[in-house]
């Protein structure tokens, strides 16, 4: 089962240079999330799953403004980021359905997507845990003399956990080449931000670390990309980390079948008026980058592609029982295929001769 080609994730990342692909990728994320919601209802998904529809502009904006050999840590709400960074719909859907062709071979599930070839570490299921790890990636980049950066992506609720504070401080004091990207979608689980957090703009928290910060319209992919590009350039130049607050919104509930009845009436509708896909579509039509009739076609084509990926995922094999005991330590069964970030000898960080995982 090799739907994705050899270089699919990196190629998909690089394709984001195209305006049209940016729009298509946002549509793809939306379609994947909607399909996953259905797969959940259909009983194909175990445990929990967290959708990010409504937040597509953040995912695509970050991916477009960073490089495939940068490192990204994000959370269980990571389907969109995985797709934007370059993981294929098959990898994502298959993982969430526990298939061997999934991004983690089916042992991780919805909360643990990853794709090393485009820098995505296994998404973090413990709130706050990805931030210190991103600091470490940034530290390694600097120590190893590359100009790579690390990007930590996390939610508004995560800014109340200790690891956030420790990471911001550590990154600031060591001027690490990294970005803190906070997706402020107004909710942490079922709790609205004002019930858990005494400040409205989380960007004010950067001042505790003398760290530059920005507040960005997270529904506008161009605004996201611009802010990320600026901060990334600063980080690469050795000028340290930046905190970027993306004001955004998740259309779905927190997880699984959460109907999100705790939201004030009309809030969702209000945000949907500024739908990130619509905003970009309108802009591209305005720019003449895409014909106005093409938007619906692109959407339909994307949906069809995702349906194909979903069917392929469901038709693909469950992991073999060997997977249970493999890759626990280096002494366990399982082919040794460590990803070498920034290895000098290869392009894109892939060590020579190692088959990329994306082809499973």
């Amino acid at each position, binding site marked *: 089962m090799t739907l994705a080609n050899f270089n699919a994730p990196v190629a998909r990342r690089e394709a984001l240079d195209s305006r049209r692909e940016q729009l298509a990728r946002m549509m793809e994320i939306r379609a994947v999330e909607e399909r996953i919601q259905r797969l959940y209802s259909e009983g194909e998904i175990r445990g929990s799953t967290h959708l990010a529809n409504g937040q597509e502009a953040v995912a695509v904006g970050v991916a477009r403004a960073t490089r495939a050999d940068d490192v990204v840590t994000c959370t269980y709400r990571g389907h969109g980021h995985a797709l934007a960074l370059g993981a294929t719909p098959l990898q994502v859907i298959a993982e969430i359905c526990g298939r061997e062709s999934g991004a983690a071979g089916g042992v*991780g*599930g919805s909360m643990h997507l990853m794709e090393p070839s485009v820098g995505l570490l296994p998404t973090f*299921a413990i709130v706050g845990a990805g931030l210190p790890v991103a600091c470490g990636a940034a530290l390694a980049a600097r120590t190893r003399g590359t100009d790579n950066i690390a990007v930590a992506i996390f939610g508004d609720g995560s800014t109340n956990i200790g690891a956030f504070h420790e990471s911001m401080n550590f990154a600031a004091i060591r001027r690490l080449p990294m970005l803190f990207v906070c997706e402020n979608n107004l909710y942490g689980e079922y709790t609205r931000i004002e019930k*858990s957090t005494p400040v409205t703009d989380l960007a004010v928290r950067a001042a505790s670390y003398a760290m530059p910060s920005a507040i960005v319209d997270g529904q506008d992919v161009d605004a996201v990309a611009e802010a990320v590009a600026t901060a990334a350039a600063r980080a690469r130049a050795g000028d340290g980390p930046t905190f970027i607050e993306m004001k955004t919104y998740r259309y779905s509930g927190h997880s699984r079948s959460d109907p999100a009845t705790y939201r004030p009436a009309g809030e969702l509708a209000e945000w949907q008026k500024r739908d990130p896909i619509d905003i970009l579509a309108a802009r591209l039509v305005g720019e003449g980058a895409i014909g106005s009739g093409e938007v619906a076609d692109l959407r339909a084509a994307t949906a069809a592609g995702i349906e194909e990926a979903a069917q392929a995922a469901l038709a693909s094999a469950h*992991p073999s029982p060997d997977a249970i005991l493999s890759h626990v330590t280096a002494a*366990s069964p399982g082919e040794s295929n460590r990803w070498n970030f920034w290895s000098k000898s290869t392009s894109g960080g892939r060590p020579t001769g190692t088959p990329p995982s994306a082809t499973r």
Partner: protein
Amino acid sequence: MALMRMRQAVLKALDDAMAADGDVVLMGEDIGDAGGAFKCTEGLIGKYGRDRVIDTPISEMGFMGAAVGAAICGLKPVVEMMFIEFAGVALDQLTTEAATMRYLSRGRLTVPMVMRASAGAGQGFACQHSQMLDHWFRGTPGLKVCVPSGARTAYGLLRAAIDDPDPVIVLEPRILYGEREEFDGDPAFRIALGSAEITRPGRDATLVTAGAMLKVALAAADKTNADVEVIDMLSLAPWDRKTVAASVARTGRLITLEEAPAGTGWGGDVVAAITSDAFGALKAPPHRITLPDAPIPYSGALEKLYLPDPEYVTAQIDALVRNGRAPAAWWKEAS
């Protein structure tokens, strides 16, 4: 007698305890307005108000410590830890602060708090949301740990934990929240911390287990030709050495069924102690049935293989009773 789901029993225990004692307060993420991620606190905020049902930010170290301080100062906080793994960002407050407070203060400052957490595998929450992790707490001087196996024991243990003058950790097997069991809901019902129950009497072997594994143990005991006594540990610290030792003295065989890899499971301590107590009575080497030394897989196909099922346990018991020796664990044969 009515059937009750375990989550209802937990809710009733909290409700009854709060009604009986105004010092009992709840703390945790989304336990108030949302009623808890597993609905174990549903409706309590309406009944007892925001000062007694406290929705916290995502700050486990913070609110765990707040529970310690509140307990010292006269409240009886019951903290909900949504998944026990999250205690990994809050451990210090339980194992280092709460556990030593009475000792350091020579009895003057005490910490009558409870941390209840959902725990365990079987539902595809994957390796960072599926462990029991009792070993983080078990054996720490000053801490108690218990694990219910259904609605009745969930009620009895949780009420006892809230009554207890010291910190108690209750690990609620998440997979049992929706399971129903006969329980009359008697508000006076308690299970003494530190005492086990003989769930099924038998003469050929003692099968000691806890939590969600009880059901597997009972099914295996039904299947095997041997006459197996099944003991539900209920408390992992302190644990009921007397009951287990007396049973093994009768049966001559000890088997543990633990939802943990061997290196972290409670069975090591139990086997060592009982071997010492009942050495002369042993007809076969004590035997532990554990999880393999590997994280818990997400895939349903794999998780089913990963967890012991009644067939596997039956085969292990049969062999031990018949041959005086259990076969190697499946993963040892496999690898």
